[in-house]
């Protein structure tokens, strides 16, 4: 970041008449503040910025898909999710889980502790262990700051390319808006594949830690493998994730022999089915 500022300063020094230098110094400060924001937001330290980005991103996601109108269902998913999150290194975050009222099969995470699952995906499941597996996958995206890191990388690249326009930005808010747009773009284009594999890998462990039968995630993926990947209901998820067959193959290698001790843990199917029935009855 420092180096970027130096380059910017050099550029300005060589191209601008002396009279304008004061004004640009101010802008330069502004740029420094904006860059600093990004740095803080994505560093290990500043959780405040992470929460801000997560909240803004979630508000926008909720603009594309509202929540299912049923308190019982929303509380249920929050309880499962919070219990899972409690088994992780970021147990102290304030976690929020939401069921989106769309039939498409998908799930999302946003920085700072936001996790969303669609009605469509919930309806493909048959046990709380499956739900736990999928939520734990999303929780991992938050734990490992996958979206935040991707946004940071893109923001830095963008800034390097568009340094002059960044300088003329009216306020720091423009920078935040850009980052939110980048985050939304990630939802339609997808994260790095390795991030997805990591989320699978850590997700099954988190589910096992939380006391669930640990095969929920692969069993849920098996169900998705039967939906044609070009079907409208699943095309966004298919386009933004590695092939289900490859994810299953990797889970196979990972899980063999490592989860035997947990295999008699509960599936918690009964109470899950009650919620699923409620969801089936809850109108759009």
């Amino acid at each position, binding site marked *: 970041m420092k180096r970027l500022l130096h380059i910017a300063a050099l550029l300005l020094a060589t191209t601008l008449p002396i009279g304008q230098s004061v004004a640009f110094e101010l802008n330069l400060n502004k740029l420094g503040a904006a860059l600093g924001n990004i740095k803080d937001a994505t560093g290990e330290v500043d959780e405040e910025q992470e929460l801000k980005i997560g909240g803004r991103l979630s508000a926008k996601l909720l603009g594309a898909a509202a929540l299912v109108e049923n308190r019982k269902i929303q509380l249920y998913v929050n309880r499962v999710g919070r219990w899972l999150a409690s088994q992780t290194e970021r147990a102290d975050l304030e976690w*929020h889980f939401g069921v989106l009222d769309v*039939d498409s099969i998908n799930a999302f995470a946003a920085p700072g502790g936001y996790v969303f699952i669609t009605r469509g995906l919930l309806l*493909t*499941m048959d046990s709380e262990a499956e739900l736990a597996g999928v939520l734990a996958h999303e929780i991992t995206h938050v734990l490992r700051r996958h979206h935040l890191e991707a946004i940071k990388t893109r923001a830095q690249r963008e800034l390097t390319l568009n340094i002059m326009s960044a300088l003329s930005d009216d306020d720091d808010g423009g920078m935040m808006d850009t980052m939110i747009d980048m985050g939304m773009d990630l939802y339609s284009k997808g994260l*790095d*594949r390795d991030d997805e594999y990591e989320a699978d890998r850590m997700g099954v462990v988190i589910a096992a830690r939380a006391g669930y039968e640990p095969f929920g995630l692969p069993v849920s993926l098996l169900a998705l*493998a039967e939906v044609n990947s*070009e079907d*409208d209901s699943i095309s966004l998820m298919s386009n933004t994730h590695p092939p289900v067959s490859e994810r299953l193959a*990797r889970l196979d290698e990972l899980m063999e022999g490592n989860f035997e001790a947990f295999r008699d843990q509960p599936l918690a199917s009964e109470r899950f089915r009650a919620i699923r029935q409620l969801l089936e009855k809850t109108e759009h």
Partner: protein
Amino acid sequence: MAAIRLASLILIATLAAPCLARPGIISADTELRKRPYRSAPVITEIAKDTQVDVVRRQGYWLKIKLAGDDQPDGWIKLFKLRYEATPAPVSTTDSKPPASGGFFANLARGATSLFGSSSRSSNDSHGTSTIGIRGLGAEDLETAGPNPAELRRLMRFTVEEEEAADFADEASLAAADMDYLLPSKGAASESNDDSDTEEFQ
């Protein structure tokens, strides 16, 4: 026509739900073991594409029976069963939401589904609401504006750690220790080198 064929397929699958065992296909050469453990004695080798009947799941293992009379039963690994995509619906506008759990997934889910608890197979009933299918695609994400009111609503469902622990307790979920696992050897190319992307093309 295709829709009718699809419907009859679904019907057959639904009717077949209460059966004890269902046919499946082996996805890769594997061993049939006497018990659901890696160290259990091998009964026989099973070749890829072999037809089998799946009886139930226990964790990582599926109990299966080779097709035909006098054929042995035994255990194979969960991931050795083949899963296949169902054909895409002809029309996307009037298609029902994706069936809750397909054929192979239900097999893999084990005894509870297999033995026709059928909350699942009967839930085709929710497919009757064929109107108002709501999607969420890339375009919806691109054009979305923020909905702060809905975010505030989300906050109202937030659950405290203790409440979640009580809830876990109610289902006899006990926290267990386990370290994260490193990528398995076969998936070692987790680096960002270009060769990694090729295998997915």
